[in-house]
């Protein structure tokens, strides 16, 4: 991999240069929390944050997305609808990049999803290493505290300057075009390593089992009383899944114009934690009780995704831990309970 260095003074012109060319989405601050939003200038941007409310998945799989448009009446016509305007997502943390890699796997698998793929192709990802992790994060346990793949550019704050890892030709091009940089030296890279290690020490949560152990740990405990215990408190509110960067399930519905001349088909985020997720028209609900839904979520994260896509379905961002009012959605606690109990 190639590495460049950009000084902190040179960063604003770089970002503003990008802004002149293409839509840029970055992290903004709101009441002490952070969220991804479209930025108009460098000043709005925040590069040192712990975690965002909603992961950047909202730009790749929007909460609500039109898939088709159709006309009704005598001669029905249908056409696909894909909104894939080019965009840079700036300041993505490594765990979220890992989550995007998982989304890539899901949406490119066997029947590639044109809406996602088209958008993904038009999205440039500029990562930033996380120096001050959220108290709920456990990325080191999941091996997602840093990443060497999945980005076009990756920034690491080493004090007065950023080391920029170049992950793609596209990234390199943008950097060349809009930024004044120099080649990174051995010393820069050593400092980058040190910064990354320093951050590692700041994580508060860790899973007592090795990552490789998790799938099997779950499998052995399919009928563990823990699931029922947690489910008794579960609100089936879906918060844990809405904020999760690896949850990608969706519902599809049709809507029509009031004058019935046409309509559109759209998809929107759905969640396996919600009561009706597996319910069919005849009334049968294949995951009727909270326990089976809650267990399914844990298994999907810690086992099923791996079996299907070769990657675990949790990147350790800890968003679910913060989002769950009932305090039962924490993978760390669940895995540790199982580990202790076995």
């Amino acid at each position, binding site marked *: 991999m190639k590495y460049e260095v950009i000084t902190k003074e040179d960063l604003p012109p770089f970002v503003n240069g990008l802004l002149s060319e293409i839509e840029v989405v970055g992290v903004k601050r709101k009441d002490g929390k952070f969220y991804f939003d479209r930025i108009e200038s460098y000043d709005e941007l925040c590069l040192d944050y712990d975690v965002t409310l909603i992961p950047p998945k909202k730009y790749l799989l929007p909460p609500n997305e039109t898939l088709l448009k159709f006309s009704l009446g005598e001669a029905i016509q249908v056409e696909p609808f894909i909104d894939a305007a080019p965009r840079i997502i700036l300041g993505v943390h490594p765990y979220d990049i890992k989550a995007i890699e998982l989304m890539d796997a899901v949406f490119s698998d066997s029947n590639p999803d*044109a809406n996602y793929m088209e958008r993904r192709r038009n999205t440039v990802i500029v990562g930033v290493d996380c120096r001050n992790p959220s108290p709920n994060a456990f990325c080191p346990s999941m091996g997602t505290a840093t990443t060497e793949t999945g980005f076009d550019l990756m920034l690491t704050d080493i004090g007065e300057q950023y080391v920029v890892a170049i992950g793609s030709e596209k990234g390199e091009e943008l950097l060349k075009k809009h930024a004044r940089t120099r080649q990174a030296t051995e010393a820069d890279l050593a400092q980058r390593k040190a910064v990354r290690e320093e951050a590692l020490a700041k994580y508060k949560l860790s899973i007592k089992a090795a990552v490789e152990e998790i799938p099997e740990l779950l499998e052995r405990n399919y009928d563990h009383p823990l699931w029922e215990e947690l489910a008794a408190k579960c609100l089936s509110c879906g918060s844990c899944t809405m904020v999760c960067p690896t949850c990608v399930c969706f*519902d599809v519905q049709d809507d029509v114009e009031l004058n019935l001349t046409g309509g559109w088909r759209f998809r929107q985020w759905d969640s396996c934690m919600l009561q009706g997720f597996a319910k069919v028209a005849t009334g049968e609900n294949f995951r009727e009780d909270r326990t*089976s839904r809650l267990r399914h979520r844990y298994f999907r994260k810690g086992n099923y995704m791996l079996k299907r896509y070769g990657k675990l379905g949790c990147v350790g961002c800890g968003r679910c831990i913060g989002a769950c009012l009932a305090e039962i959605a924490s993978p760390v606690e669940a895995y540790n309970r199982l580990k202790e109990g076995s």
Partner: protein
Amino acid sequence: MREKESIYLPKLAELVRTEGLTERERLFELKLRNGDELGHQPGQFVELSIFGVGEAPLSISSSPTKKGSFEVGVRAVGNVTNALHRLEKGATVGIRGPFGNGFPLDRLKGQDVLIVAGGIGLVPLRSLVNYIEDNRQDFGRVLLLFGCRTLQEQLFVGELDHWRASKDFEYYESVDRCEDPSWKGQVGVITTLFPQFTIAPEKTYAVIVGPPVMYRFVIAECKNKGIPDDQILLSLERRMKCGVGKCGHCQINNVYVCQEGPVFTYSELKNLEEAI
């Protein structure tokens, strides 16, 4: 890799014929507007759109040996299915698919086949029965077992008469309850038919489609007869939205019904906690 087109874009199809089967079920014959064959295997399904209402997965009920059009048999239970029942000849619907794996014809060929249909399960199985009939020489003994709750719920009555009389099949049927004195057949659940025949289990494949409650009992009977687990085939129903392995609704543990299924062997399913 660049996808050719949206996997969510249906092809337009014309409703060329509809026929009432029972009070709740109708048969719909469809033709793709662009003239293409659907190109399906028995046991596969399509996602059928009624624009403005929605999309629903439906098994293809006709055999691929029937060219030019295909059929679905549908029970009116919700939005799409009810809207479909209201459509008239000439109407336009959308079709995506065929999806799913279908019945493993390669494995069935040369073997004895025990077909067990409960109620509306006959809809997908009809596609297999018709296929077998058109390629009768490829298969060994073929036993047909049909069960439904009442006589009024019997589907494809004309075809049942034909199969009943046909030399190609060994035919057994039952109804759960019956007040009609003219009914001379079996009264009782479908499992009561099993004592009536013997099979060579090692070369018999059981193909079972019916309501979820039926599976456990019929599987027990098949095992009783000595059919190996991986020769017991079942088609499962789950909620589906996309049909192409993305939306997550049809998941049974780590398995997607729309991708690995809807047809599974019992040996695949017995380790899936949520399956049956």
